[in-house]
């Protein structure tokens, strides 16, 4: 075998913290050979990112690394920065997770790119600019010349990540380390970046660090699984997926949503089998925000059409999923239903009564039956209130007649329902993990036994195993209390487990409404098809068989939506008709409703 490009031996990373020493990486060994594509997989806190930081000499000040890291036989662990800087950015380069935070906000894209070339070569300004533009072209950024003079905040998330990758590729490095390169991105954009990384495998050696086995399955040849600072299993991707030996790997794989058909749960909610009474009906709802745009010299107000004419209903006991990428208007829709923001048009009929006409006081009375769980568990809990008083607050408002003892009993009940202990009652939110905080949010939302629970990305910020538990909890509560759920998510694999019926949203419009299995088995709308094919499936066979539809470009701005069908600018089957006429909803034979001229 060839000499390794990078050899890491018995790597340890220790952090000195106020709470004592944290041993984050505990003896990691691995080798990277030219042409490899290695995936390092683990949940948050497994030490995978710190391993990469140690390799690059980027550890925080309070960290100490020991062991050995050799790049082409040269020892680089704890090397002086002068020595590291001959390698960093030139021979080994890195792509980070959050491209907004990882690009310097006040420097133009061009300056950030050229800086690397000026550091590592003696190119002139013009040569550097030409090279930077060439690489921007390689990473498929639209209009590279224009982007060159822009600031990071003027680019979309996908474009920013492309800039990060371009920055890493400038000097044609021998090794590219990518730390969660697609985690902060939308599904269709993630598919684009992964597709690009696959094409990059021919040019350079890659190490990908990720929590998502689906990403690894489609990309890497070798996988290292990390847990608590150690590599617990390693092998060819095929072996890991099909014949993994370590229980932790198997648990990771099991925690992931599988692509196969989900068996209908036993207590299947009545929503699809025998439609229950309609609880909520949304009729042609519109939410427009006035935004100011600069038009030559004058600024004028243009409506941002966050939600633009959506209709659906939720039956008793039903779970309705709303999926779409960031900016499609799904959270705005949730807020409008809850009357947390006003609507521009349309009706929200709740148990036969139009909510949008109600006074604030009357609306507040209705909130008794409307529970809500938000995305970020920690920031949606008041940091200065104890868990007990957070959960009890709705009771104080709606059941002032309850005495202290009754209220305490109800809070303990709610805590038990979500799997927390009575001792947790007097503690504060920051003492809990993300998953536990989300349980508190759920307990608070459920304590009044609402008839509808709106969950806005309730599991997006959680690790895979916590995510699975939280979903299980929601389903148990639903079975117990018969509550209807509107489940908003960008994650189709989660929606597939939870929901009876799925609404697919794009740029403020619904494009397809169908029962869960029908939607996933035979998606009718081209956007739904693309979304489903973009799910990184943690299954090798599926990855290879699946024909991937990769959408080009990014969603247009909701201030200037395309004429006709809103999806036509990215649609692989769009024709002239699509730009002329907005498609109406049609019901297909299998009961799915789809808004497309060609479905």
């Amino acid at each position: 075998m060839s000499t390794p490009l990078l050899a890491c031996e018995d790597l340890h990373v220790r952090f000195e913290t106020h709470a004592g020493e944290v041993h984050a990486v505990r003896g990691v060994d691995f080798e990277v050979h030219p042409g490899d594509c290695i995936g390092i997989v683990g949940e948050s806190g497994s030490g995978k990112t710190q391993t990469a930081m140690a390799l690059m000499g980027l550890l925080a000040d309070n960290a100490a690394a020991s062991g050995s890291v050799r790049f082409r036989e040269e020892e680089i662990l704890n090397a002086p920065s002068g020595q590291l800087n001959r390698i960093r950015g030139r021979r080994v380069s890195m792509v980070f997770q959050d491209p907004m935070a990882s690009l310097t906000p006040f420097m133009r894209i061009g300056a950030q790119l050229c800086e690397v070339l000026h550091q590592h070569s003696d190119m002139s300004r013009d040569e550097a600019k030409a090279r930077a533009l060439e690489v921007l072209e390689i990473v498929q950024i639209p209009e590279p010349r224009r982007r060159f003079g822009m600031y990071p905040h003027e680019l979309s998330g996908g474009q920013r990540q492309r800039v990060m990758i371009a920055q890493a590729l400038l000097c044609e490095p021998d090794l590219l380390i990518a730390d969660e390169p697609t985690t902060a991105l939308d599904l269709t954009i993630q598919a684009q970046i992964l597709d690009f990384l696959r094409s990059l495998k021919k040019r350079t050696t890659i190490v990908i660090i990720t929590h998502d086995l689906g990403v690894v399955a489609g990309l890497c040849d070798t996988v290292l699984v990390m847990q608590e600072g150690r590599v617990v299993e390693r092998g060819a991707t095929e072996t890991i997926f099909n014949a993994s030996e370590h229980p932790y790997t198997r648990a990771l794989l099991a925690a992931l949503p599988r692509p196969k058909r989900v068996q209908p749960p036993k207590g299947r909610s009545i929503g699809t089998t025998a439609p229950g009474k309609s609880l909520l009906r949304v009729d042609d709802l519109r939410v427009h925000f006035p935004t100011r745009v600069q038009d030559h010299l004058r600024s004028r107000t243009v409506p941002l059409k966050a939600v633009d004419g959506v209709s659906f209903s939720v039956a008793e006991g039903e779970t309705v999923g709303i999926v779409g990428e960031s900016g499609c208007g799904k959270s705005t829709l949730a807020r409008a239903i809850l009357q947390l923001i006003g609507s521009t048009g349309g009706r929200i009929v709740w148990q036969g009564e139009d909510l949008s006409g109600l006074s604030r006081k009357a609306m507040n009375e209705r909130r008794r039956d409307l529970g809500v769980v938000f995305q970020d568990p920690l920031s949606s809990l008041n940091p200065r209130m104890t868990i007990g008083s957070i959960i009890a607050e709705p009771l104080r408002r709606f059941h002032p007649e309850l005495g202290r003892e009754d209220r305490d009993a109800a809070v303990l009940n709610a805590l038990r329902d979500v799997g927390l202990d009575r001792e947790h009652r007097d503690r504060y939110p920051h003492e809990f993990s993300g998953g536990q905080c989300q349980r508190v949010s759920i307990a608070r939302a459920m304590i009044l036994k609402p008839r509808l629970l709106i969950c806005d990305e309730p599991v997006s910020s959680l690790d895979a195993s916590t995510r699975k538990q939280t979903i299980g909890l929601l389903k148990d509560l639903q079975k117990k209390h018969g509550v209807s759920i509107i489940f908003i998510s960008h994650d189709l694999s989660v929606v597939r487990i939870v929901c009876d019926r799925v609404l697919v949203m794009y740029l403020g419009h619904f494009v397809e409404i169908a029962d869960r299995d029908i939607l996933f088995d035979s998606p009718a709308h081209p956007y739904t098809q693309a979304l489903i094919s973009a799910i990184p499936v943690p299954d090798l066979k599926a990855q290879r068989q699946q024909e991937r539809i990769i959408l080009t470009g990014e969603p247009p701005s909701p201030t200037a939506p395309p004429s006709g069908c809103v999806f036509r600018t990215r649609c692989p089957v769009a024709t002239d008709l699509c730009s002329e006429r907005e498609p109406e909803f049609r019901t297909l034979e299998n009961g799915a409703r789809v808004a497309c001229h060609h479905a």
Partner: protein
Amino acid sequence: MLNYALRRLLVAVPTLFVIVTLAFFLIRIAPGGPFDLIPDLDPTAAENLRKAYDLDKPLVEQYGNYLWRLANGDLGPSLAYRDRTVAELIAEGLPVSAQLGLTAMVLGLFAGMLCGIVAALRKNSAVDFTVMAIAMAGVGIPTFVTAPLLTLFFGLYLGWLPLSGWNNGQFAHIILPVVALALPTLAGIARITRGSMLESLGADYVRTARAKGLPEWKVISRHVLRPACMPVVSYLGPAIAGAMTGSVVIETIFGLPGIGRAFVEGALNRDYSLILGIVIVYATLIILLNLLADIIYGYLDPRVRPR
């Protein structure tokens, strides 16, 4: 940008109006009048003086007259220096105050930032602790304490520098007042710079810059310093206001012929028109310098640039 500046200046007009109105009525609430300090003034003469300066008319009418004259660019005659106009007095004092204030601000800004940067780069070292301890003292001890102490030590004890006076802005005469005036600003800026440096040193994009293989000084100068300056720029507004009130104290202590001292004398003499005139000068300066700070801020951070 020009558009934005013009809009801000337009908003400044009503702001000034409110300030003038408040000041006009507030000083009238204070007991006593402008001629109380003239010795042996008989009541008829006093009455004549009041008549001569319109002070016998109803307050609202006086206010209307003052605004009318102000609109015509006339700040009126001084009530205490009866042969001088307020405009003349300000024209005399302003260069002195401006020289003092500007030098102190520049010193405070640059020395403060330098101290903050050094402290942040040598975090938790002896240098850091020393600089921050001095800064803490600078923030905590008021100018009217530091100024006499400085005079005592450098002026009387060591005898290196003159005790007071302006002497046409001779260098030796400027040093002590400038240092005394700059100290609180310097200390405040040092603390803010250190904090924001530490924050921006931990930013993700600084890690990216290091991963690019840039040497540390380039990482600092290109990717760390600029965001670290931003809180300093927002602090400039209050710092300027602080330096102006500070200059009132400093000019009085060191006996400098600036508008700060004129302001104090004006207040003691109930020289209504002089006080109002200086208030207008101070308010205009603060509004203009704050606008300047906001424009610099927009230059440093493209995300908040006004469209």
